């Protein structure tokens, strides 16, 4: 079966610093991939290149056979990119909910403005998505009244409302207090069980092993090791992977 997402020769430099030095991988529909690695390894940058929040310096990204960010050899503008980005739901480390809108509006607004749903349909969709993340009870609250874990669950609902082909998670629990991490991970695990395609950057190694089908270990801008989640995490082949995992567990 063809890959849903395929990435080839992905490079990204910030000024003279090359953060990604040629990344290749592909993701089949329904697959869950965890990207792990030390800080500064380029894993977040790699994820952000998928929807061109960072513009790659080189390389090719195909989603469902469609080239992302380039058309007829020319870089697409943010305006042209909008429909492609809508195909990918993204969850950020700092949630990035829109504080001037209620929880429901946060989830519904893109459905209305981007996909042109009517107000009522969009609201129903939003409530369905909030139910998935167990946040229906705060549907009319302001994001500012919520805990970090609740905000992140709403942010996940917002991304789900895009009906995306692919979900991108950028360290979704890194900014949370330890006691709030679990509720967010549980929600992500439930979504994983629905057969969604997910690309997840995380520091939660045990979670990556339990939820992901495959794990990619990034270091120094390259994929050092890649394979079935339990194999990479329990019995890493590469020395760099071993020493990283050792540090994490302590």
């Amino acid at each position, binding site marked *: 079966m063809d890959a849903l997402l395929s990435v080839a020769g992905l490079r990204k430099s910030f000024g003279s610093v090359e953060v990604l030095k040629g990344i290749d991988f592909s993701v089949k529909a329904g697959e869950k991939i965890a990207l792990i690695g030390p800080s500064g390894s380029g894993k977040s940058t790699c994820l952000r290149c998928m929807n061109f929040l960072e513009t790659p310096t080189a390389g090719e990204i195909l989603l469902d056979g469609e080239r992302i960010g380039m058309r007829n050899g020319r870089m697409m503008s943010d*305006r042209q990119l909008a429909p492609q*980005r809508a195909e*990918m739901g993204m969850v950020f480390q*700092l949630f990035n909910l*829109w*504080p*001037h809108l209620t929880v429901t509006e946060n989830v519904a607004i893109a459905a209305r403005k*981007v996909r042109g749903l009517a107000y009522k349909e969009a609201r129903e969709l939003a409530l369905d998505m909030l139910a998935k993340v167990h946040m229906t009870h705060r549907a009319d609250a302001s994001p500012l009244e919520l805990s970090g874990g609740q905000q992140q669950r709403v942010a996940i609902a917002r991304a789900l409302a895009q009906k995306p082909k692919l979900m991108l998670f950028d360290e979704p629990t890194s900014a949370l207090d330890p006691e709030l991490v679990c509720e967010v991970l549980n929600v992500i695990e439930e979504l994983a069980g629905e057969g969604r395609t997910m690309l997840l950057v995380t520091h939660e190694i045990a979670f990556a092993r339990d939820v992901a089908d495959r794990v990619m270990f990034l270091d120094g801008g390259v994929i050092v090791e890649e394979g079935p989640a339990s194999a990479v995490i329990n019995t890493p082949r590469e020395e760099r992977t071993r020493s990283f995992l050792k540090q994490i567990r302590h």
Partner: protein
Amino acid sequence: MTGFLQPYFEYGGEWWPLLAEAMLNTALLSVAGFFLSVVLGLALLLCQMSGSAVLRGFAALYVTTVRGVPLLAILFLLYFGLPGVGITFNAFTAAVLGLSLCFAAQVSELFRAGLKAIPKGQREAALAAGFTPAQCFTFVILPQVVRVILSPMIVTFVSLLKDSSLASLITVNELVLTGRAMATEYFLPLQIYIAVGLCYFMIGWPFSVLSRRLAAPAAR
């Protein structure tokens, strides 16, 4: 005390229509000046954010110059100076122009500060959700900027309202000029200027209250 208040009872009926008309002029001048300030301020902001170094340089020069020159000098230049090169405005127009040229710099700085106050992640989340940049600005950035700057914007309006008194010196028939004419006529400068002050207060105070009200939730 009754001696001091006496003239208000005696001439109040004559003064009030004069002051009311002057208040209206002051209000018109301020509102027009503020409206144009916002328009010019936004134009200035676009220059500041533009890709062109020339426009950015112009905006920087403009802000620096206007901040360094007193409003009164700008008003005199517009009303007394420009006729020298064949450009003539009536007093009211010159005053509106002068006020807005001056306050546009403040308004653009306010907008800029408001935009800066919105974290980068807000825009990223909007783009990731499939918004175009225009939609992102309209539905995500602008509503938040307005919330941030509404209260300081009103404060700016009140300060423009007070500075509009300088227009009296280029013969705009607003509150201070009317007050001066009345003071000469009635020989009661103390009572009349107090009345003039109260008139400013009557226009400005509701806005000050509004501004504080609006600022309160943001400070929570």
